[in-house]
């Protein structure tokens, strides 16, 4: 998939399971060791229902729908989200982040403005999740 892009095009939706071990691994790779992302006792002490995923883990997961569709992750020239609801990750069952996307607009230069929806158990976890995807050279856009 390399464009030209079409307004209204739906990106293939995906579901991403997340368990506690994913958060420990993400903490190590990203350097974000905030204990609310791996320590149940600490999370509950600060008033959370349980350990929650890093917002940045959710953000990274959601854009997979765009990078897999675009083919070239380097084509994602802008990406922004608002973190609205924490993704609670109980042990051992974990959670599943469901992500879908739609091309909202195509700019004059051929770049696609993609709106993403990310939900867990039907509740939205990211708002204003948007990516700008440049067309591949020679796509005719």
């Amino acid at each position, binding site marked *: 998939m390399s464009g030209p892009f079409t307004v209204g095009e739906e990106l293939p939706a995906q579901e991403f399971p997340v368990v506690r071990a994913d958060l420990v691994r993400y903490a190590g*790779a990203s350097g974000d060791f905030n204990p609310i992302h791996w320590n149940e006792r600490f999370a509950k002490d600060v008033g959370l229902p349980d350990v929650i995923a890093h917002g940045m883990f959710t953000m*990274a997961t959601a854009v997979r729908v765009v990078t897999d569709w675009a083919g070239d992750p380097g084509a994602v020239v*802008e990406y922004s*989200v608002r973190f609205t609801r924490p993704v609670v990750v109980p042990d051992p069952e974990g959670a599943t982040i469901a992500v879908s996307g739609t091309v909202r607009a195509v700019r004059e230069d051929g770049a696609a403005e993609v709106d993403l929806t990310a939900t867990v158990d039907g509740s939205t976890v990211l708002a204003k999740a948007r990516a700008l995807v440049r067309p591949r050279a020679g796509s005719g856009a």
Partner: protein
Amino acid sequence: MPVDQSFRGRSFPPTRPYEVGREKIREFADAINDPNPVYRDRAAAQALGYPDVIAPPTFAIVLTLPAGGEVIRDPEFGLDYSRVVHGEQRFVHHRPILAGDLLQVVVTVEDIRIAAGNELITNRAELMTVAGEQVCTAYSVIVGRGTAS
């Protein structure tokens, strides 16, 4: 206690240069469960026109989180770090981050707003090579819950 408003507009010195390693990109891609070969295999990246493996779209956080953290933990800034949550994040990529890049970050406190008793602090982090090439601009909105009063 509210933060020191005089930090608005303030830029901090460039961070120590960070060399983007191919194995670090792989580790990050593994941690987000993304099997894309363009994050691991130089030939796959070259097939897309890149000189080496590229980093995932949110990889810049590896550099900007500690850089921004230094600002928000500055005792003179006065933010109660225990009340901080991540409100928004935005990346503008001037080009993908590549293995081998030697990057520095300059953080600027772009805005401090108050909404419903919370403080919303917008930091802009400019990632550039040591040669001065702009690579990525990352905007973070951090929220101090109930810190405005």
